[in-house]
């Protein structure tokens, strides 16, 4: 017996049609389902050889011949980056040539330009932690950094300075230090200094920010104090939640009774459902201007839009759920003496509650999908206003955390509600031993490979 069991004990297969995996494997796969997309995102973002069609500028420069200004942090295509670098190098070559030939014209404008060129180092200094963001135009501090880099007191690491640019820094410092050791706008050279050559790292387009950037920007936006006149992220979130839940609860208030009545009584079903079935095909956003006209531009038209988007589906879904109540329960209640009104209160309602609860869970998710459209109508508000504005500035590393947060709120609300369902309706919890028992049954069945003789009493009784 022991031996035969050993033979039949084999590794459980991963692929079994309509069979549960064991808890260990199920947990592993659940983890993977979140880990894999994250891993792919990380891989695409951080492995430079995979995609990276753009260059993210660390050091930028103004060009005299082009009006467009790129600053550090901007994304440019690789092709453009090459021409950009070449143009600046050409400019520098021209400056050197002019300087040697003595053609350089001393001009008051040159001093202003030089001051601008000094600031080309600011973004690098900020990301190396030597300057604060609000010091980006503090020329005295920047001047000191030029000096310290040129003398080797400071070495930029994040990002490092290219050797080419390091050379330029030293050359420029030679000119600068000849006039003044400290910043003085009037003592800047009156001949043009060299521009820094644009410098950057290969990167993905701005619409696919790296996970790290998203995390940092998100953390910054969610924890920092709002700028003057702006709402903090939590205030925005509360506004958005109010709109979603306002629309959803209103819809429940009207939709649940109508749905249950329509599912119970043919009268209501025939009276209401055809029209509702027709109405739900009209896209809710099509009513946005109408809603603004009716409710004027506050939260009301937004809540009304969520309502319209949810209500009609709700009635149909709930009436269907109600109709699916096992008819034999109604019949057995009748044979137990339940009158029609008692049937409704004591069988229909408690009978559909668990399914109704699940419907509402799904419909709440449905309401969330209307959020962004609802917040766009009239005056933009809440999270959507933030997404819209930041998106327009192509700050997708700020947009992603908000979108992800909406997803997480939805996900965890749903998980909570699913758990809470087990508390509210303990009789819907699946018996835990079910999968185990089927496994046991298999194990018992396995050793019995040879057919055992079977006789039933019936076959033995003479007829």
């Amino acid at each position, binding site marked *: 017996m022991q031996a035969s069991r050993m033979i039949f004990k084999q590794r459980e297969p991963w692929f079994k049609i309509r069979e549960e995996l064991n808890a260990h494997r199920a947990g592993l796969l659940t983890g993977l389902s979140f880990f894999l997309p994250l891993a792919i995102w990380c891989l695409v973002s951080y492995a430079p050889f995979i995609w990276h069609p753009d260059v993210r500028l660390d050091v930028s420069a103004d060009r005299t011949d082009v009006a467009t200004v790129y600053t550090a942090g901007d994304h440019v295509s690789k092709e453009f980056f090459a021409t950009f670098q070449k143009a600046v190098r050409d400019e520098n070559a021209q400056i050197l040539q002019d300087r040697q030939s003595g053609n350089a014209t001393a001009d008051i404008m040159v001093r202003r330009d030089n001051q601008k060129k000094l600031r080309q180092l600011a973004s690098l200094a900020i990301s190396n932690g030597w300057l604060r963001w609000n010091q980006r135009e503090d020329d005295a501090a920047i001047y000191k950094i030029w000096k310290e880099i040129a003398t080797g007191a400071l070495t930029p690491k994040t990002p490092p300075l290219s050797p080419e640019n390091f050379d330029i820094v030293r050359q420029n410092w030679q000119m600068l230090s000849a006039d003044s050791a400290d910043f003085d706008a009037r003592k800047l050279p009156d001949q043009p200094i060299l521009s820094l050559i644009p410098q950057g790292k290969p990167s993905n387009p701005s619409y696919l920010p790296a996970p790290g950037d998203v995390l940092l920007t998100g953390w910054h936006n969610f924890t920092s104090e709002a700028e003057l006149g702006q709402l903090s992220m939590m205030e925005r979130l509360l506004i958005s939640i109010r709109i979603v839940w306002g629309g959803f609860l209103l819809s429940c208030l009207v939709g649940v009774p109508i749905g249950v009545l329509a599912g119970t009584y043919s009268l209501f079903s025939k009276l209401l459902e055809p029209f509702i079935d027709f109405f739900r095909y009209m896209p809710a956003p099509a009513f946005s201007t109408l809603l603004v006209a009716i409710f004027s531009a506050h939260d009301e038209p937004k809540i009304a839009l969520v309502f319209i988007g949810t209500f009609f589906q709700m009635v149909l879904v709930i009436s269907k759920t109600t109709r699916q109540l096992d008819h034999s329960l109604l*019949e*057995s*209640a*009748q*044979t137990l003496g339940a009158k029609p009104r008692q049937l409704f209160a004591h069988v229909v309602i408690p009978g559909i509650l*668990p399914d109704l609860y699940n419907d509402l869970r799904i419909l709440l998710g449905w309401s969330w999908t209307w959020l962004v459209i609802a917040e766009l109508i009239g005056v933009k508000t809440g999270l959507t206003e933030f997404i819209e504005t930041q998106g327009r500035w192509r700050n997708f590393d700020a947009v992603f955390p908000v979108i992800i947060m909406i997803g997480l709120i939805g996900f965890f609300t749903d998980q909570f509600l699913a758990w809470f369902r087990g508390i509210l309706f303990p009789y*819907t919890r699946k018996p835990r031993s079910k999968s185990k028992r089927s496994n046991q049954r298999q194990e018992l069945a396995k050793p019995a490979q040879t057919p055992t003789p079977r006789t039933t009493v019936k076959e033995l*009784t*003479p*007829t």
Partner: protein
Amino acid sequence: MTQIDLPDYRLQSADVAARFRRLKSRPVVLEARNLGKTFASSHDEVVALEDINFAVHRREFLCVIGPSGCGKSTLIRILAGLETPTEGEVLIDRKLVTGPGPERGMVFQGYTLFPWLTVKGNVMFGLKMAGRASIHAEPEARQWIEMVGLSRFENAYPHQLSGGMKQRVAIARALANQPRVLLMDEPFGALDAQTRCQMQSYLLQIWRNVDVTIVFITHDLDEAIYLADRILVLKPHPGRLDELIEVSVPRPRSSEQLISPEFLATRKRLEDLIHPPGQSAGDKLPTLRLTRAGDDVE
């Protein structure tokens, strides 16, 4: 195979004959008069039942049997008031039945316990519907639960019970209303053979202790003979009354009687009625496969 000479199935011992005399002297509880049911759809009509007449006496155990499609379920649904007959009438205690009511309890084949109520809640359901306060209903429900032997499970939910336990609760739930008639529509059909045996003896025990008349539908011949005083045999297309057999097997019944002459005689008669000779099931069985392994089994 040896052929045993069976007595006439109608032959009754003195005891059994006396029992039937006593039974028939008791008042009629449930009566079907000229019952007929026709299901009409847009293009044709199906006659499910035609001209059914019978009377069930107080505390009688009546089984209804017949091949599939003979209208057994339609009949019991009409008795319960869940269907209206297209012809004839059903009387309970000489009063016309117009719809379902608590004086006719019913146990269905499928499990129809209310999943949101505990065993106790289910058994109390009828009492609550009748407007009884929980304080009075609860001890009464407990009594019925005890009768079906489920006191330990009174706070369990139906999904935690096995099939046999569920049907025991269903029986307790129907009996808690103290109905005049208990209608049972193949209540043990979904149970395995062993559990079914157990349930049958449970049911007989309950029937002995409770003043209730039982109409029991089944397609299992042994079950019908084991349980019934009289067996109502229906024949199909359309469903008509074929024969009303008085079971000559003495009471109390036990599983040893399954091979008693009376039992076998009644069984033979039922088989002849339901599978008329000439088209017995054995003749029609197709030979699916011939195996060498089968050579030495007999």
